[in-house]
């Protein structure tokens, strides 16, 4: 159940991003989870609902975007199907993972009474 420790890290990151904005109310937290990341999104949602209490995420919605796994040949860029032998049939090179291992905090939407001091990126 490493999903609980991932949510702890997520809440820490969101809290840090909201730093200096005590009045900020986090509305939505957008994350990306790859299919090959080893993270179960249902467990992640359950963990979020447990851990958000008493934090800046208390009323936030967790929006999870799943990222499908993608392997390619590093030599000829030919896609190698997930579930196939992970070696290029032409070049015989071991496949390279280009997508699918993401565990990423993408965006936070928050409501702040005064946006003048917020760091925009």
């Amino acid at each position: 159940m490493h999903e609980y420790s991932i949510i702890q890290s997520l809440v820490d990151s969101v809290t840090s991003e909201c730093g200096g904005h005590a009045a900020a109310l986090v509305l939505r937290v957008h994350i990306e989870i790859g299919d090959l990341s080893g993270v179960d999104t249902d467990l992640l949602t359950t963990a979020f609902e447990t851990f958000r209490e008493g934090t800046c995420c208390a009323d936030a919605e967790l929006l999870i975007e799943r990222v499908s796994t993608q392997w390619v040949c590093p030599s000829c860029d030919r896609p190698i199907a997930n579930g196939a032998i992970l070696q290029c049939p032409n070049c015989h090179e071991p496949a390279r993972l280009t997508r699918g291992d993401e565990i990423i905090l993408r965006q936070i939407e928050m409501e702040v009474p005064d946006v003048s001091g917020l760091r925009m990126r």
Partner: protein
Amino acid sequence: MCQDCGCGDPEVVPVKVQQKILARNDRTAAHNREHFLGDGILAVNLMGGPGAGKTAVLEATGHALQNPKKVAAIAGDLATENDANRLIAAGIRSKAITTGQACHLDAELVHRSLHHFDLTGVEYLFIENVGNLVCPAVYDLGQALNVVALSITEGEDKPLKYPTMFAKADLVLLTKADLLPHLPFVDVDKITDALAHVMPNPRVISVSSRTGFGIEAWIRWLATARATALEQFEVYA
């Protein structure tokens, strides 16, 4: 902005972050890695399910080495220090990390365990992870290489059931090879075929910790891996 009248009170602000949720763990892992390679140590994250034979492989490694002082181990366990004690009995200087309820080691746990752990003269540090084929794969500890112990009794399709773990493995140790004559229904080719579907560069060494079969090949693999890792570290340092 308020969507009703545009009065500006309060505003919804999207803040793009785009950072790894485990970034803090990864920073500590990078710090560990620099220490290991800077000190000439190949750190190996040894993972596998409970009972796969991780500790037994390390015991056999300790017995086979001419100089076991070159090897040290950190043994992660939920509740006991049994594994670390077994390794100490095999001549390997070892330290236990008791994780309590945590199903995996993380970089901070490893970092803390390194304090007051004398690694002078050590060339190989094995980090024996908690027995689990899911959670340990998610956390970088600062290792140079991932090795997964898979016993031949675990089922031929195990790699397909735990693709994340095996996709990250640099080597699979197929353990308990001495049992093969007693397992007429186990087809080793099916195991290696399953590995080829989840592991881009499947490297497998069959070993028996009981008879010592394959242990020399494993030790040779480690020596080559250490030389390569240290060479790459020097190039990029």
